């Protein structure tokens, strides 16, 4: 499968008044056409910030500080030679003008978020909000360089009226019809009627469907789903996952699925990247990561979950807590070393990614290439000095 997005060395940092937080630290991965790529990690591992960095939604005090985001788009590469890769196929999203980059939201990238209740505007009907997304796309494709047409008779009068009746002049019957059609495609019964209802009249599962409909308005190439089922009950989660897989297959979209739930990953994904403390510590196919994990963190994560079908008498958790990610507390060493049951002297160096024999399967760990050597193992209390927890 050809890759449509290549992320190389992406770093995102937050500069707060008292500390610098390295939320994402030289992350590299690629997204291929028509695949579902899973990014899994615990809270604070940087998985959501990675997704936001792709679509330029990292807010101040956060900032993408390094890396290239190569998108396969030959026409754009031709229009912006300064941002183009030498092969002429890819453009670096970070080098594009803001307006051009913004116009990619919708037709190239679309996002669904965790909490559908807070992602919709409570004072507009659901149909209206989806129609708005449809209309944005229609106007953007009519005048590709801008997302909002200024020549469409949008004068002061319309502006003032819009203040009183939000969304009034923006959508029309055609976009409403399309909105109803989209609601129907995501399995909402009586879409015509439901389109006229407000978000609070929807259940959590139905609203998540509506958000998926909104995301589909621009016919995206890549759908970024950030914890799409975390707020939902397990029977509703099963419905939404099924729906996501259906629309992914129908449209041959790529999906980047971000979640903390290894079960969701196993149900949905072709390939997986495991994140810890802002880094991708292991990536590979689902089979590589689940059946043959190399990184002790991946192994620990899998050992931590109770198995529904085969109960174990005792779980094998990872000791300790997730680190704070403050630059002044992290230092240079391998981030996981202080919790790792197999920490060795070699782990104290800043580490580069190492591949296991298979180039598709890589881990940021010395164990990917070398066997564990108890002779150089760090003493148990090595990291306890200077911290009392």
């Amino acid at each position, binding site marked *: 499968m050809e890759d449509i997005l290549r992320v190389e060395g992406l770093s995102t940092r937050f500069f707060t008044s008292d500390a610098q937080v390295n939320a994402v630290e030289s992350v590299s991965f690629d997204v291929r056409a028509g695949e579902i790529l899973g990014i899994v990690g*615990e809270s604070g591992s940087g998985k959501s910030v990675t997704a936001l960095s792709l679509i330029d939604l990292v807010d101040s005090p956060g900032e993408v500080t390094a890396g290239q985001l190569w998108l396969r788009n030959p026409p754009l590469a031709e229009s912006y030679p300064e941002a183009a890769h030498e092969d002429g196929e890819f453009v670096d999203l970070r080098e594009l003008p803001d307006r051009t980059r913004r116009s990619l939201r919708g037709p190239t990238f679309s996002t669904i978020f965790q909490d559908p209740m807070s992602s919709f505007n409570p004072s507009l009907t659901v149909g209206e909000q989806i129609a708005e997304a449809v209309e944005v796309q229609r106007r953007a494709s009519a005048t590709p360089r801008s997302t909002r047409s200024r020549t469409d008779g949008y004068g002061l009068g319309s502006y003032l009226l819009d203040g009183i009746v939000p969304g009034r002049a923006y959508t029309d019957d055609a976009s409403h019809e399309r909105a109803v059609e989209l609601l129907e495609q995501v399995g909402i019964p009586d879409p015509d009627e439901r389109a006229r209802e407000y978000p609070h009249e929807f259940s959590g599962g139905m609203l998540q469907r509506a958000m998926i409909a909104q995301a589909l308005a621009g016919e995206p190439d890549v759908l970024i789903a950030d914890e799409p089922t975390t707020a939902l009950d397990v*029977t509703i989660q*099963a419905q939404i996952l099924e729906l996501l897989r259906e629309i992914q297959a129908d449209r041959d979209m790529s999906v980047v699925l971000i979640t903390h739930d290894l079960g969701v990953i196993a149900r949905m994904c072709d390939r997986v990247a495991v994140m810890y403390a802002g880094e991708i510590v292991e990536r590979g196919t689902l089979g590589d990561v689940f059946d043959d994990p190399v990184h002790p963190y991946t192994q620990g*994560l899998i*050992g931590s979950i*109770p198995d529904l079908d085969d109960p*174990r008498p005792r*779980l094998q*958790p990872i*000791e300790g807590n997730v680190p704070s990610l403050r630059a002044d507390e992290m230092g240079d060493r391998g981030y996981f070393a202080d919790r790792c049951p197999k920490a060795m002297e070699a782990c104290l160096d800043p580490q580069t990614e190492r591949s296991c024999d298979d180039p598709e399967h890589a881990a940021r760990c010395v164990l990917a290439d070398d066997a564990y050597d108890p002779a150089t193992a760090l003493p148990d209390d090595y990291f306890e000095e200077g911290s009392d927890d």
Partner: protein
Amino acid sequence: MTERDHELLEVSELRKYYATDDSVLDRLLGRSSRSVKAVDGVSFSVAEGETLGLVGESGCGKSTTGETLLNLTEPTDGAVRFDGQRLTEMDGASLSRFRERAQIVFQDPFSSLDPRMTAGEIIAEPLVIHDREGDNRERAKELLDRVGLSPGQIDRYPGEFSGGQRQRIGIARALALDPEFIVLDEPVSALDVSVQAQVLNLLDDLQTEFDLTYLFIAHDLSVVRHISDRVAVMYLGEIVERGPVESIFENPQHPYTQKLLESVPRAETGERGRRVDALRGDVPSPRSPPSGCRFHTRCPYAREACREESPESVETGDEGQQAACFRAVDTHPYWRSVPLDHADAADEEPTASGDD
């Protein structure tokens, strides 16, 4: 563990209704109030030393059940017996004694600890309330150490601890009075998986060490399977099925339990190919629950009979397993009634009803 020699807690027909839209005028006119039936006739028992898992989706009434049986909220109806004694008949002294013997750990480690008290004060508070003699601070240090925190952290505030550490403080507080029974209300659902596993192991160890009896309330079925000896499954304020943990997970009898188990994504590579027939629709509002069997609006096996009559719990399948479903009774008129429109599951008649 399956020996059931002594029932520590017995709950029968417990009900908790919350009245809504009930104005003074309504009361004067004697209008019946429209209430939310959060818990509607729940019966179960917990034997000494065992863990009963109470599982269900959000809004099914599992947390309300936990709070009501500890008398943290007054039950509308029903009886709770703790060690043979009825809760509603306890006087001040015996109620205070009950409050020492039964404790609770809450879900959210962020809102259940007072941010202005130190860890030591939080853990020692039950000792102060119940006038325990001895050195409270020493006892708090001992408890901190027991739940895997350093006694040196006794003067820190909750804000200085991570979520998992705070949950450990909540557990230490619950242990302070040497209780026999602890209600664990979603104690690990706010935690990351690696920390969740630490806390589950800790709960396991404490149960063995102090002979504790647990009521473990959770929505995560894998966690419930891991920790429970017996399980009760709730749907819309009622228990639809209960029994030993293996029976519920290996041989579920109620269609809701079956669908719930089918819905859980397994963290293994074969998961992609597994066929899941997701349960359709949403949970109806507990304000106006469906007639008859409350699950009939979503049940793939629903028939006319399910709409008219509410099923009783009957012994079924394995020993000690009970399900509230007509399908567990081979001779029930259910089998001769007409399937509802949405019911589409391939269905075979029970062998016993034959061709009569």
